[in-house]
């Protein structure tokens, strides 16, 4: 059984477009979607509404930077601070080019960072590159991961 891809995105349009992009990459992995940071943490730590979910970490977390309740940076922080979760690759998806977000995310140990391009084709390409990379290689070697950043 392939590990699922966890997609955390609050904007329904971005969610639909990202799902479409993932769909186009013909991945066999299930895509689990969460709509805010708090829900994502519940899922990741198997608490609250997700207390009873099947154990196991996602193959990759696609995390939007700006989220309601608990924002992306905080989710990233929690993941990288947790022993069992820190090996899970996290890709930050965002509209922002602001360098302080970027710097902050890298400081927290984000594995990749994708600025969502306006051009949809480029976005599909970026998602496909990521999806394929993370989902196929189930156990990426930590620290050596430098997926090509597209913008």
């Amino acid at each position: 059984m392939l590990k699922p891809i966890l997609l955390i995105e609050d904007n329904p349009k971005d969610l639909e477009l990202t799902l479409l992009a993932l769909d186009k990459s013909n991945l066999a992995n299930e895509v689990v979607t969460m709509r805010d940071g708090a829900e994502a943490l519940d899922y990741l730590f198997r608490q609250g509404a997700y207390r009873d979910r099947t154990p196991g970490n996602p193959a990759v977390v696609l995390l939007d930077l700006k989220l309601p309740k608990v924002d992306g940076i905080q989710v990233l922080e929690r993941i990288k601070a947790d022993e069992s979760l820190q090996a899970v690759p996290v890709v930050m998806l965002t509209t922002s080019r602001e360098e302080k977000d970027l710097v902050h995310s890298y400081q927290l140990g984000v594995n990749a960072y994708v600025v969502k391009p306006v051009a949809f084709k480029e976005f599909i390409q970026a998602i496909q590159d990521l999806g394929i990379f993370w989902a196929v290689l189930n156990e990426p070697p930590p620290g050596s991961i430098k997926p090509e950043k597209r913008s």
Partner: protein
Amino acid sequence: MLTQSGPGQAADVDLANCEREPIRIPGSIQPHGVLLVLDPASHVVLQASDNASRLLMDGRVDPLGKPLAQLLSESIVRTLVPRFDKVPSNAHPLFLHTVNVGDRDFDVVGHRSEAGLILELETVTPDSTNSSSDLHLEFDIFSQQAEAVTSVPELCQQMAKTVRRITGFDRVLVYQFDDQWNGMVVGEDGNGRLPTYLHHRFPASDIPAQARELYRLNRIRIIPDAGYQPVPVLPPKTPGRDRVLDLTYSTLRSVSPIHVEYMRNMETMSSMSISILRAGKLWGLISCHHHEPRMAAVAQRTTCDLIARAFALRLSAVEQAGRYERRIAVRSTYSKLLAAMADQGDYIAVLAENSADVLAAAAAEGVAVLTEESCTMFGKTPAENEVRELADWLFRTVKQDVFSTDSLSLVKPDSAQLAGIASGLIAVSVSKLHPSYVMWFRPEVVQTIQWGGDPHKPVTTEDGQVRLHPRKSFETWKETVREKSLPWEDSEIEIATDLRNAIVGIVLRRAEELAELNDELTRSNKELEAFSYSVSHDLRAPLRHIVGYAEMLRESLGERLDAKGDRCIGIIIESCEYAGKLVDKLLSYSRLGRSELQWSQIDLPMLVEEVRKDVMRDASGRTITWKIGKLPCVTGDLMMLRMAVRDLLANAVKYTRRRDEAVIEMDCRDDGDAWIFFVKDNGVGFDMKYTDKLFGVFQRLHRWEDYEGTGIGLANVRRVIERHGGRTWAEGQEGVGATFFFSLPKPPKSEKEG
């Protein structure tokens, strides 16, 4: 030329001598009366002048140890004793009564000292009396006249006349002390028997410090006959006390032999002086002289003293009245300047714009307003470097908020060459940190001063010993005073002080405003950052959605989409992508202005080659001749400069698109402090009248369909170059080509190289 040390030196000598002069305890009195020291309780005589027995008792009895009643009659004592209660201690004696003893009339005055009750009985001579009603009348007339006069010299003149009328002395002088205690005759009345001294000066050594102090304590002194023989007071020391009798407040006190010598040299045998005190300080003297011996009775002297006191009261009023009008004028100028400064904030500009008023406020000939950065001068002032040197001296040596002098070279000898412009100086400091001053200058005024005799020669030496001798000659001695301006009036110094306070207030307010502005700037910068952030997020998202859904639409319609529909969707997508680019460019432009430069050495030839290859990728298939000259290494921010070079080369490639033989040239020349680079092409060029627009944000000079672009490239170039301290400009001709220039300042050479 007079040096200021002349009279001063003499003053030192006279002080030293004066201290040896026992002027308060001469041990003797003048012979025109009798002095008795009584036990305060029993009225037994403790001490008496040697003439007491002769004048009071025809030499029959030794008065010492006798009760007063034995010297004077019982009835006289009965008249006097009730008044003893009113006799003051250590103060000017009180007139008690005129009594008749034997065949003589005596005016009796009394005061108390540590020694006891001191009675002085002055013989009354018939020619020295006026009726008391006459004296009242004189006082009354003087008071009325004093009310009417408007100038100090007039008031002095009036007083001299009145005192002469009362006393009948040959000459009455009103003598005023200056700051250095030199005296100047400011009023005079005389009958011509004695020389006139009006406007003459007398050196401070003429009236030594100790004598001045005695004048202050005891306001009336009379010497009816300079040829007198002193009468000793016996015994010299009061019984039971170990000190010679103190005659500070005595009216009969024998005066210094030096003074008597002085009088003889002046050919005056009698003199009287009344002190003029103002706020407890010796302002001057009424100095009366007579060729022959002459007496003024107690009542006359008292009236003169009253007149002197009325004079002192009136003096302030008259002086103030004289200054009042000027003060009003100055005040109105001040208000005007203050209002302008409050309004405008820039005090230097206000002072410069109102230079005539600023000069007039202190009746100065020149003004300099000096700060760290600027030196604004108007009227007659020293040169800027001299003003700066003066400011440094004030800042380091004087250290006063307000400094004024009418003889700058006296306090700063190396400024003598400025005397013609700046003998007088008021300088107000407007900063505690820097030598910032407002200075008013007055030129030297060469003055001739008449001295009553040569002030340099009051000292003679005998047997190698310096001894004080009064001057023998009172012939007018003229001297020329140089390097001195007209003195500053109090009101002028006051206005300068007020202006200083106003300026300091304004400077402070400006500093506060600047701090506030800085806060505001920081705030608005943060706001801008937040704005950029939200633009990048919130504006890009919908654009992205439009593009994404348009793509989905195109896909889902598939075959059903006709060419027209496909074109529409294509334009929607293209437009949104373009809008996204604009947003990105705008953000990066704003970041260019905000982010810090990362300085490094840049191999420009290598950078240009990289960029050239890069831009050529978008121009494949074109023939472009590149002429890259020898470029230097420069210091700057690599990312930014790469961007600027890229924008310039890409532009050149873009606008030569229609040339079959495109030629793009990049070279530089050394302009001393800076390198000047240029990128020249033979493209479409531009009309020079639009050259101003070229470097603006989103400014485009070509039609969209001819040349694509966001119109931000050259704005980026300008911003990058400006942040490096350089300039950008362009030359062009429509249809011929364009040349874009930019300069980059060279880094300052290290000392080793220099």
